[in-house]
């Protein structure tokens, strides 16, 4: 558990620094036409350190809510296709280049 938290600290610190870097700002502008907003990563790093030092419930909840928002952001668009519950049955079917298959 302690290891995971140190790991999360490293990640949010890295993400904040990466967010602010010239390379990222350039690519964000190139992709979205705006500068990136890095405030959330800064908050996350702060909360991560807070949790590490004092195990405050508020810090933990803030972190969880931030991560859940990030995941929700990704999922807010209506999907174009339906997801499979199993991989395609014919994925490993042997190739038969001589005979045409019926559709």
């Amino acid at each position, binding site marked *: 558990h302690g290891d*995971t938290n140190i*790991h*999360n600290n490293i990640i949010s610190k890295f993400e904040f620094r*990466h967010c602010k870097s010239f*390379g990222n700002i*350039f*690519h964000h*502008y*190139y*992709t*979205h*036409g705006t500068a990136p907003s890095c405030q959330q990563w800064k908050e996350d790093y702060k909360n991560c350190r807070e949790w590490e030092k004092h195990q405050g419930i508020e810090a933990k909840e803030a972190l*969880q809510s931030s*991560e*859940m928002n990030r*995941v929700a952001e*990704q999922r807010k*668009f*209506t*999907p*174009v*296709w*339906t*997801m*499979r519950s*199993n*991989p*395609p049955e*014919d*994925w*490993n*079917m042997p*190739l038969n*280049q001589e005979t*045409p*298959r*019926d*559709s």
Partner: protein
Amino acid sequence: MDQTKQEGGYGYDLFPERSKRKYKEGSIAERLFTFNNKCQVMLQFAMETSPYAKLLLSAMKSSGCKILKDRHLSCEDCDGTVSGGFDAASSQIVLCQNNIHQQSHMNRVVTHELIHAFDHCRAHVDWFNNFRHLACSEIRAANLSGDCSFSQEAARLNFGLKQHHQECVRSRALRSILAVRKISREEAEKIVDEVFDTCFNDYAPFGRIPHSNRDAKFANRDYENRDRYYANL
């Protein structure tokens, strides 16, 4: 190989070796008269060293569609300037050995086609009948494979900065659709517009748009740690 699909305007004419190879596979003639060997070597290198390709290979394995080089990847001669394709009917990625001559190009094509394969694996993609599905996968592939990076576009002499990435993704997706399906440009543009927001923002399995090998390496690391990450949530 499905004959009806061959005749039906699904772009198979760009990949003549899908129905009949010119030289027998593995023959000396193939080695002497085609770029098959070079293609195989570059492909192997791409699979082992490109962080984009490695992440996609892991993701596919986790999704139950492990990629076996000999079964799912094929180096063939193709028509025109096409670099590669994904044949859903046979679950194979085609690499155009006569049109890919640089390792960096191979890396991008492998990534691009693996994204199609990944979509095929995780979703019910109706490649042949649903243009929205095709457009969506093409948007994702152009977006996430590095096809539209600043340096790639600059190399094509398409200099653009503000939001140029999106323009590039739209135009390359359009081009890919028009190459393999018989529809009008206007119709294709309309379809791309309809699905653009959803598909441009679908970063799976990368989690972010990788703009460089470094980004892709970090996306790979995030992907490897995702179980631990989701457990923490």
